[in-house]
């Protein structure tokens, strides 16, 4: 299927975050499609681009914005998205990753492709990304801890990337491994989880067009605490499925063991699809605290959690006939 493409304009080059937020809201109120308007009014905004102390940092990325994936919800601010993270390799507190990730070196970076595929080996990140056009995708991000964000990721479709390595018929699963560098990642000194962190998807899940390999957020390269330089985003699953700082992608025939599932098999299933009907043993998954908006409201709003995080129409078919209670 051919998708409508607009000329690549890095959204944040034109728009500091508050303006970015405001304009998206404004456009929504007008009922207009943001990408089209942005393409039209682009450069005239440059004068308004006052540097924002808490605003986006990092190198800008050129990305197109195929709007059919965009969530309509209010965005989480850059600050919240980069200061409130779960990345245990940098510590278990939500503020630890932002504090401790400074020493991490996301460059140079290589990714090893292994397992049941015709093309395997070690690839430079640039070579991995080169054949693909970067896209911006505004996704809801639902943590298993019952809070959520709405984040404009920049990335490439995971499936299109994986196909280049020609997985064989024995490739039924794909595993993603996070880098293991104790010198740069102080959290690795504690055996909180089975290091290195590993997550995995069924191959049809990985091939779904919603799944992406992200390299940026808010039109900028990923900050270290968000999983630089390459991370997985699977928006219909709980956030921990999205392995960060990926160094290895391996095609498996059998279902790989995954870190959180090993730590608490009764609490963190292999699938971990967002499901308001299946509670975590220690808290309800029926609703979530939405950390979003421009900071005008003091407290995060609680909103209902949607099946498959609101992407049921796109992905429910992957699980047809499966008991989602048993396969949580």
């Amino acid at each position, binding site marked *: 299927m051919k998708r409508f493409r607009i000329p690549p304009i890095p959204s944040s080059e034109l728009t500091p975050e508050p303006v970015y937020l405001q304009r998206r809201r404004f456009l929504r109120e007008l009922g207009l499609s943001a990408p089209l308007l942005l393409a039209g009014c682009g450069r005239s905004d440059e004068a308004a681009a006052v540097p924002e102390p808490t605003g986006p940092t990092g190198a800008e990325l050129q990305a197109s914005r195929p709007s059919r994936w965009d969530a309509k919800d209010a965005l989480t601010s850059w600050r*919240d998205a980069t200061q*409130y993270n779960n990345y245990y390799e940098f510590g*278990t507190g939500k503020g630890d990753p932002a504090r401790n990730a400074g020493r991490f070196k996301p460059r140079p970076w290589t990714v090893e492709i292994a397992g049941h595929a015709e093309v395997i080996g070690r690839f430079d990140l640039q070579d991995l990304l080169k054949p693909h056009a970067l896209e911006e995708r505004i996704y809801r991000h639902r943590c298993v801890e019952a809070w959520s964000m709405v984040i404009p990721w920049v990335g490439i479709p995971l499936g299109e990337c994986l196909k280049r390595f020609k997985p064989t018929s024995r490739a039924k699963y794909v595993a993603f491994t996070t880098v293991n560098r104790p010198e740069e990642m102080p959290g690795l000194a504690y055996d909180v*989880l089975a290091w290195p962190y590993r997550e995995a998807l069924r191959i049809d899940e990985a091939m779904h067009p919603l799944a992406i390999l992200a390299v940026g957020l808010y039109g900028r390269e990923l900050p270290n605490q968000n999983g630089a330089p390459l991370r997985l985003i699977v928006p219909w699953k709980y956030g921990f499925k999205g392995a960060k700082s990926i160094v290895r992608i391996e095609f498996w025939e059998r279902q790989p063991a995954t870190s959180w599932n090993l730590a608490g098999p009764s*609490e963190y299933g292999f699938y971990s699809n967002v499901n308001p009907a299946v509670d975590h043993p*220690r808290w*309800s998954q*029926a609703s979530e605290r939405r950390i979003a908006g421009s900071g005008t409201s*003091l*407290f995060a709003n609680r909103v209902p959690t949607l099946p498959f995080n609101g992407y049921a129409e796109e992905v429910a078919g992957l699980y047809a006939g499966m008991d989602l209670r048993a396969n949580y």
Partner: protein
Amino acid sequence: MSRPADIRLVIVKIVLFAACLLPLAGMLWDLQQQNLGPDPVAALEHRSGDWALRLLLITLAVTPLRQLSGVAEVLRLRRMLGLFAFFYASLHFAVYLFIDLGGFWRQIFSDIFKRPFITVGFLAWLLLVPLAVTSTRGMMRRLGRNWSRLHRLVYPIGLFAVLHYVWLVKSGQKIAVREPLVYLAIYLLLMALRLPWRRWLAALRGKAA
């Protein structure tokens, strides 16, 4: 007629009262300054819960402290400490119910029945209510011997509060469980200090002799 010792006690009480309000002041200040991070509800929940538990354990430390120090006056600080523990526990509960759950407050019922960590937390708070209500001098007089019987509830309350914290930690998080285990150790120590060690030792010596 007030003796110097009474005046000293009044001063100590005023200072303690102010000190017990400091955590609340800190929370309100950080709230006003927007210092509570991206998820202020969670921050308030954690801080009020922490102080409820700390004050509860400090209250439980009063009796052993008196025995060890021999200063009888510390007993007269116990009611205030206990009431502040109840105050922070109620604040904690209110934040959860009205700010965190908010429009989803009906979830509290399934939480209480289905989630062991909430069950014991709620039980701890519920059992604190009759203790707070009967903490006045008049009530003490009216209840007589039953008063101290009733107030022995504080021992299971302490255990429930500690379990509440131990159980809320995600499984597999060995570091995260360290802090609640410190509270558990303190609770067990405070309970152990109440056992009649002297009598047991004397009995042992008696047997040996």
